[in-house]
């Protein structure tokens, strides 16, 4: 197997590159609609036994759990039962290397009485966050999904009516095998906006014609004035004669060829704009508008307006903007996931503190012991309260560090795949490392804080000696 592939892998890479070129030309890349909260699935996709709809980040985290579960089963099966038996090799070694390396790493930081608990937390958080972060590198995540119209009903309390709000989106088209795509080259323009643009073009053209006519008339009047006075130029007379003559001539000049040319030019520019969209096989401006104003009150009872969920293959689909709602999104781009892990980590930090120091752990926060004994006792109280605030700030910084890094990373991948659809690999390699580093930082900080919580402030020496023996 190995000898067969020697020297041939480069051709595989070349083939993949050519496939990338082909796909990028065939299916134009699309910048997805970016939003922070996890997107809800359409109606009917509820979590079993609970009346809550799935979100795509939640599906992502379920996949992470399943993958980790499969790894756990695999590792426990492969692990040699007898200490002397050689492990059966393969993928299993990767886990041995990972665990041994990280065990040594954590042992140097938090080796002590509570090493087992700290290492368990460290490794769990590391693996979960790592798997979640690496999900953004998997093809199909963030790109394949439900295609749905990006239309919202908004209740206007003042007027007591429903408004139909159309927002950004793309046009839809039917491609290969009847699969619907959003057309990245045609951002959607509502028929109302299109009609308004047409009106504006007409008005502009009319103005251009008048301006041209005015210009012609002024010229004609000036020429006549010059002919009459034969160069005796006194300014006051010129101005008076000018205004009068221009008005007379303007009405004739409106009908002249030059004014008509100015009129046609503006309309032609507008037509060229539309034609450019049609050349990209967009259909806005071509489809008839069923309603004249996109923001017109939308009356539910009359049901005369457009359907909110048209069939993507029907003509009605052309009347709304479409976006893709991915089946799976990277779980770390959802604040719910990062906040949950941060809360678990926070609880474990407090738990291990109480476990190691008992109720005395609270003196770290409420340090009134020295208040009346030493002149600087007040400072200790303030420091304790600061520690308390700092502990809660940990939740914030833990959750937003991971969220910010991975969310920004996935937007970077979107934009780069859009700009350089053929070769976004360097950024995927970058995100690969960012995923490892963020997972490591999250887990390592948990381990460090847990270790700090086990160390008493006042009896450091006694405690260390007790640990050593």
């Amino acid at each position, binding site marked *: 197997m190995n000898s067969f592939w020697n020297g041939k892998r480069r051709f595989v890479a070349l083939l993949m590159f050519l496939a990338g070129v082909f796909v990028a030309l065939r299916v134009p890349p699309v910048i997805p609609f970016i939003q*922070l909260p996890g997107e809800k699935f359409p109606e009917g996709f509820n979590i079993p036994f609970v009346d809550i709809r799935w979100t795509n980040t939640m599906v992502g985290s379920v996949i992470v759990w399943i993958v980790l579960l499969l790894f756990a089963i695999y590792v426990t099966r492969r692990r040699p039962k007898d200490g002397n038996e050689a492990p059966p090799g393969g993928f299993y070694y990767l886990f041995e290397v990972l665990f041994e390396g990280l065990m040594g790493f954590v042992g140097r*930081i938090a080796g002590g009485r509570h090493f087992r608990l700290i290492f368990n937390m460290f490794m769990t958080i590391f693996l979960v966050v790592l798997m979640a972060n690496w999900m953004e590198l998997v093809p199909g995540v963030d790109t394949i999904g439900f295609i749905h119209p990006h239309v919202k009903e908004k209740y206007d309390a003042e007027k007591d009516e429903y408004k139909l709000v159309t927002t950004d989106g793309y046009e839809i088209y039917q491609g290969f095998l009847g699969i619907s795509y959003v057309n990245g080259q045609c951002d959607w323009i509502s028929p109302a906006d299109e009609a308004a643009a047409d009106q504006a073009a007409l008005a502009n053209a009319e103005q251009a014609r008048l301006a041209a006519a005015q210009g012609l008339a002024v010229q004609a009047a000036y020429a006549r004035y010059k002919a009459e006075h034969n160069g005796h130029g006194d300014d006051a007379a010129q101005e008076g004669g000018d205004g009068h003559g221009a008005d007379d001539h303007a009405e004739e000049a409106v009908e002249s060829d030059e004014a008509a040319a100015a009129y046609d030019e503006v309309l032609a520019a507008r037509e060229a704009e539309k034609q450019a969209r049609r050349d990209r096989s967009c259909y806005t401006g071509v489809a008839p508008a069923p309603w004249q104003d996109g923001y017109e009150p939308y009356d539910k009872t009359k049901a005369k307006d457009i359907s909110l969920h048209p069939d993507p293959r029907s003509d009605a689909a052309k009347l709304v903007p479409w976006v893709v709602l991915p089946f799976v999104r990277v779980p770390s781009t959802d604040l719910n996931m990062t906040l949950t892990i941060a809360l678990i980590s926070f609880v474990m930090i407090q738990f291990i503190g109480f476990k190691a120091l008992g109720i005395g752990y609270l003196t770290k926060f409420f340090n009134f012991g020295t208040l009346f004994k030493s002149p600087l006792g007040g400072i200790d109280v303030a420091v304790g309260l600061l520690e308390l605030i700092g502990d809660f700030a940990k939740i914030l*910084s833990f959750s*937003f*560090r991971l969220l*910010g890094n991975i969310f920004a990373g996935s937007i970077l991948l979107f934009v780069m795949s859009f700009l350089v659809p053929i070769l976004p690999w360097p950024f995927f390699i970058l995100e690969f490392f960012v995923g490892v580093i963020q997972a490591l*930082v999250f887990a390592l900080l948990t381990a460090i804080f847990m270790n700090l919580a086990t160390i008493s402030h006042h009896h450091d020496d006694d405690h260390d000696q007790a640990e050593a023996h």
Partner: protein
Amino acid sequence: MDPQSTIILGKAIGAGLAMIGAAGGGIGIGLSVGGAVQAMGRNPDHTATIQTNMILGVAFAEAVAIYALVVSLIILFVLS
């Protein structure tokens, strides 16, 4: 300019200005990592201790930048 565009304009400018705060975190991280790497180069035996403290310091410096990020995300996505 219609009110919708004005709102978007204000949001974009505000979010961009809020992220200036991240510069402080960047300076802090740069200083602490630079110092830590120098220290590790001088006495490699203490790498583990220095690394741990460095990561702690980096985390605290980064936390400030994250507050800026939070503000900017709130401006962009929550404020309406």
